[in-house]
């Protein structure tokens, strides 16, 4: 579905991505994790076409994204950005309907089919009851559901999410990831999500890709990637990885006791991260 080959990207002279290789298959939920500033968001921007890759190939369904053109790309890739502002006064339905934009011609108006698709997307994200509400009055969790509904209205094959749960409480976090899981499983949508909470990533993602310093430091099933030594190398902070008593999935907790005793040594190790 999505394939990145030796992708490099820079902001001016600052190189942010230094050769990323990554694959996301249809129906797969991949969590992208790593320290702040490691290039996760840039990676999403490159895949969505918002930022050009300096080198390497980004292929969606085998086709380089720069060849697809922005409208055709938007028919395949939907983005749920972090903290995206929503315009005052528009209803949740209006905003979800904007997801139909890449499927409408310049002079075309929305029709019954678009209403059906938006209704299905909003029902799925349990935001249909919010349809008449102005988006500026919605809570964080409600906004997120409307944004995911808008993304689904694009009928994408690939969903890119930048910290989809960062402003949400525990229940809404779990809710969001359950929904993503279900979309991947039932619709075969591929999802690539930046996730800071490693335990959350381990619980819901098929794979975790750890990014450090513009490169993929580790990529694989949560249990193989989320080992204490790997996380400590990437984040430069002491952690303990426990196993969930029932599922066996990794639970990552900071190892505060160790940090207090030899935190200075770890600060030295952290030098690799920008």
């Amino acid at each position, binding site marked *: 579905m999505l394939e990145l080959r030796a992708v490099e990207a820079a902001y001016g002279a600052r190189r942010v991505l230094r050769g990323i290789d990554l694959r996301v298959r249809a129906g797969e939920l991949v969590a992208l994790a790593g320290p702040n500033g490691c290039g996760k968001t840039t990676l999403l921007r490159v895949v969505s076409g918002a930022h050009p890759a300096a080198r390497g190939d980004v292929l969606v369904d085998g086709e380089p994204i720069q060849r697809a053109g922005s409208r055709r790309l938007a028919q395949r890739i939907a983005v749920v950005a972090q903290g995206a502002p929503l315009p005052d006064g*528009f209803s949740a339905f*209006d905003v979800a309907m904007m997801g139909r934009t890449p499927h409408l011609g310049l002079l075309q*108006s929305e029709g019954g089919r678009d209403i059906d698709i938006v209704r299905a997307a909003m029902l799925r994200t349990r935001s249909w009851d919010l*349809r008449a509400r102005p988006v500026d009055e919605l809570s964080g969790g409600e906004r997120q559901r409307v944004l995911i509904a808008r993304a689904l209205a694009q009928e994408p094959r690939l969903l890119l999410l930048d910290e989809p749960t960062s402003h949400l409480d525990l229940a809404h976090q779990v809710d969001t990831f359950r929904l993503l899981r279900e979309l991947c499983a039932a619709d075969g949508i591929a999802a690539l999500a930046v996730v800071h909470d490693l335990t959350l990533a381990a619980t819901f993602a098929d794979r975790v890709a750890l990014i450090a310093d513009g490169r993929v430091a580790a990529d694989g099933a949560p249990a193989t990637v989320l080992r204490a030594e790997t996380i400590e190398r990437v984040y430069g902070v002491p952690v303990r990885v426990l196993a969930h008593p029932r599922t066996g999935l990794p639970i990552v907790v900071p190892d505060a006791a160790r940090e207090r005793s030899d935190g200075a040594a770890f600060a030295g190790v952290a030098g690799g991260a920008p």
Partner: protein
Amino acid sequence: MQIAPARRARLAAPDDAPPLVTWRTQAPLFLLAALGTLLVALFAVSWGTVDIPPRTTLSILAGHLPFISTGEHAATADAIIWQVRMPRVLLAGMVGATLAFSGAAYQGVFRNPLAEPYLLGVAAGASVGATLMIISPLFVVAGMFSPVPPAAFAGALIAVALSYGLARNGGSVPAASLILAGVAVSSIGTAVVTYLMLTYNERTLEILNWILGGFNTATWTDAAILLPYAALALAGIAPLARIINVMQLDEDEARHLGVNVEAVKVAVLALASLATAAAVSVSGIIGFVGLIVPHAVRMAWGPDYRRLLPLSALFGAAFLILADLIARSINPGYEVPIGVITALVGAPFFLALLRRQGAGRRPA
């Protein structure tokens, strides 16, 4: 009566979605607004120092249409209606529509509530062009075709091109840079005009008269000059209303939805600036219309540009026709500059709307 759950679900399905805003669903609203604007225009054409009943006015107007004969009218009444008031009201309406429509479009692509059609230096540029023409020897020899409007038009376009050129950075033109460049270009223009006005003080009054603007010298020619630009802007920008809605998200989000943000921005700014430049060149600088009319429409009918753009044009026309009517009838014999009226009448009206909206909204 009880409705079985299954049946209720089926009943709910077709019409439980909020209504779509399309040309078809909004047609009644637009027609009503257009009718209101026409009534305002008819009233304005009938009203004046020589009072002519609306029926006579209609009859005279109809008589000027091809193939319609409405009998003889007094030559003076006919001249007043057809040669004086009609072009005046028409021009005021067209300028009002152009400014309000362009203001709404500017606010849309800049996503900035303070954006207005003079933002990129149209007014200052037009003033420089007009001032240079007025102080030049050409101005004296000018007969019935004044060279001032073309000079103002050229000045306005040069100013916009300058703002755009200054703000351009690689392939894109960031909205914030464009606004700042517009402010800078406007300041330069204003400074030049002030200097010229003081240096050529024998022409100060003419310059000031032009800048303050108004419709007391309106002719059919002025209206004909403006028409193609206004029509082009309307026809070019109105179909983009749905895309302008999407651009309210933010530029990156709009791009993710497949919108070619830069192309839309350039097209809207070019068309709106061209129309504004044409409006300013035949009417002088009339402030406030392009700022408050779109906001008033937004407060009453919401932020959807598919309603906002057409209604701004219609209410902008009605607003400026009324403002001009007040300007010419408040003190017969001496016309109050129309910009004074738009500010004095428009601002309190706008503030009242703002307060009413504030009262209706629950605290966030």
